[in-house]
């Protein structure tokens, strides 16, 4: 079963992604490819599905990595302030009028990486960061970032305000195809890099000292893993703004299903996270028609109970001891 999860998810993916193309803001059904309007609708929907899949996959993988490297079941891009830093970076880019294909994700990445470095540095005075110190400083850095964001927002000209607000709400509507493409490349490359070093992450779940004894170059691996996790988060934030919960629930759910081996867990989390977010988005559109319910609300509403049920059923499954 453990080994088959990835294949099952892989089989489900085309079905679900294809199905999601049928769901639109106005109506449920296949848009007519023959008309220009139909083509436009289809392309909007396809962009949205692609963005949802990428963002979900990125956030879930980042969650897996942070939980493994920080050995902390509560680690998540949101909790650790990476999302906050990335959104601050992205907002700065938007305000500076540099919301281009690579500048937006680049400044989001810079913000996320800085936030992560700050949190890590604050929490580890000597050697490995302590669990509570890490969470506390993550929450604090995240809070500071979001208040800085508010400052920016209140000082920004009206046009900039609109741009930031629209983006901050957490929205999977594609702003530009090149941005989607750029983020897709970033996310795919990061995923490949992480998957290739899956054995290192497995060893690092035993702690960085034990990983050292097992022959992992711990400092390098740690920086590589955290850096790529920050990169993925930044790409996700640049694409879709702030969407919480995916990075926490999906890794736990899939770890309970596939076990803690990252060679299986990472692809499973990428597929699972992507599909989950696409489903949530489709649900938000279907339920909220003719408007839509923000996808972040749906992730929290559906993911929360699912997560709790999982915890109750297998209290010792996965990571939590």
């Amino acid at each position, binding site marked *: 079963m453990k080994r088959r999860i990835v294949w099952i998810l892989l089989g489900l993916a085309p079905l679900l992604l294809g199905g999601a193309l049928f769901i639109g803001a106005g109506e449920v059904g296949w848009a007519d490819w023959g008309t220009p309007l139909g083509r436009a609708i289809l392309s909007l929907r396809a962009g949205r599905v692609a963005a949802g899949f990428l963002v979900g996959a990125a956030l879930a993988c980042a969650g897996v990595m942070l939980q493994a490297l920080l*050995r902390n079941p509560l680690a998540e891009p949101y909790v650790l302030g990476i999302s906050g830093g990335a959104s601050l970076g992205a907002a700065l880019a938007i305000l500076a009028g540099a919301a281009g294909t690579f500048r937006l994700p680049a400044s989001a990445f810079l913000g996320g990486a800085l936030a992560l470095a700050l949190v890590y540095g604050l929490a580890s005075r*000597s050697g490995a960061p302590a669990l509570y110190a890490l969470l506390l400083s993550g929450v604090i850095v995240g809070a500071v970032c979001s208040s800085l964001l508010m400052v920016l927002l209140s000082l920004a000209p009206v046009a900039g305000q609109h741009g930031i607000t629209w983006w901050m709400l957490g929205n999977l509507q594609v702003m530009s195809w090149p941005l989607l493409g750029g983020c897709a490349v970033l996310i795919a490359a990061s995923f490949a890099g992480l998957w*290739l*070093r*899956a*054995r*290192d992450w*497995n*060893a690092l*779940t*035993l*702690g960085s*000292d*034990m*990983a*050292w*004894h*097992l*022959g*992992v*170059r*711990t400092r390098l691996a740690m920086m590589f893993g955290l850096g790529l996790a920050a990169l993925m988060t930044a790409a996700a934030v640049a694409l879709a703004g702030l969407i919480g919960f995916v990075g926490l629930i999906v890794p736990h759910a899939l*770890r*309970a299903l596939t*076990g*803690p*081996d990252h060679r299986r867990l990472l692809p499973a989390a990428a597929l699972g996270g992507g599909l989950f977010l696409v489903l949530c988005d489709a649900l938000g559109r279907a339920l909220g028609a003719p408007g839509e319910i923000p996808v972040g609300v749906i992730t929290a509403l559906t993911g929360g109970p699912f997560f709790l049920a999982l915890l109750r059923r297998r209290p*010792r*499954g*996965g*990571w*939590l*001891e």
Partner: protein
Amino acid sequence: MIPALSCENLTVGYVRQPVLRDLTFQVAEGERVALLGPNGAGKSTLLRALTGLQPPWSGRVRLFGADVRRLPAAARARLLAVVPQELRAPAALTVEDLAFLGRTAPLAPWRAPDEADRRIVERALVYTDMNELRDRPLDALSGGERQRAVIAMALAQEPRVIVMDEPTTHLDLNHALEILQLVERLNREQRVTVLMTSHDLNLAAEFCHRLLLLDHGRLAADGARDVVLREDILREVYHCDIRVRRDPQSGSLLVLPARRLADPRTGRNRRVHVVAGGGCAGELLRRLSLAGFRVSCGVLNRQDTDARAAEALGLDVVLEKPFSPIGADALARAAALAAEAEAVLVCEVPFGPGNLVNLELAEQAVRRGARVLIHDRNLELRDYTPGRQALARIRRLLAGGARPWHQISQAMNALG
């Protein structure tokens, strides 16, 4: 022959505090060495330095001749495996998963474990008798099984040296024996060099050829059990009374902790009289009676703090009514007690007209040749007698053979 492990003038520390100082020793391949020492002696730090985790301040650690800090991580992991004191792992990890983690270093990231890797893991599981439990998650294992699973992981590294940090601390006696027998077998059959720290001197002596005794970051002793497990050495290092006996049946050495060194035998049946007052003597009285002296005390005012302390300790106390000068009757009783004491101690008492006569007890003791110890600090400040009579009499006492003291340890040492 290149030694498996060697420390050369190793000095290691954290922040500003050196923990290991100029340590030099070698471990030959195939040895079974136990690293002993009290808490804080530097055992854990030495393990961290030996495995390359802790960079030395000076000196170096060599693993089969190569500087352990310079060795590539994967090469180091093929030579040296570590069994930590406590492994914190994801709960759902199975025994087999854990054993495969031992193959982390030899496997390139894109390569799946092949037949050879499987065979090695298989052998490690069989060797540690974990084959039947291979699919169990770690959190469903007992302490001993868990430890065996970790050893299986270490074996899967196919190391030439295994370093174990307190492998038996959390185990009861039969499981501890089981683990140590496993280690002994490994060492004998696979020629794996073993270095382990231990708090259990007896088990360590039973299973290791050689003992290294660490004290304050230095080697206090190094050698076979007969050389290291000696009462005088252990007493020095562990600061407590230790007896070493040979078990008549097995011939092995047994280390038995005895009572604390500062035990009642020091003062047994020896009488001491203390001139106290004003609450200055509580701690001295306590220490003297803990050390086993028979302490008498007086003359004290009934409401004095020292009087209460002395009564609480069950000492012989001579008391006088509150707010009245010491009378001839009370003084005579105190003198009778002091006359039987081998020493009279005068504490940091404030002297006034009322208690000045207490000094007579000291003067009598000096005259009969008994030992007299007089607290000599702040004499001027605590002399409230007209014409500084107390000061004068104390000076005369000190000139006449009484010895000064001002710290409790001095007084205790003077009593011997």
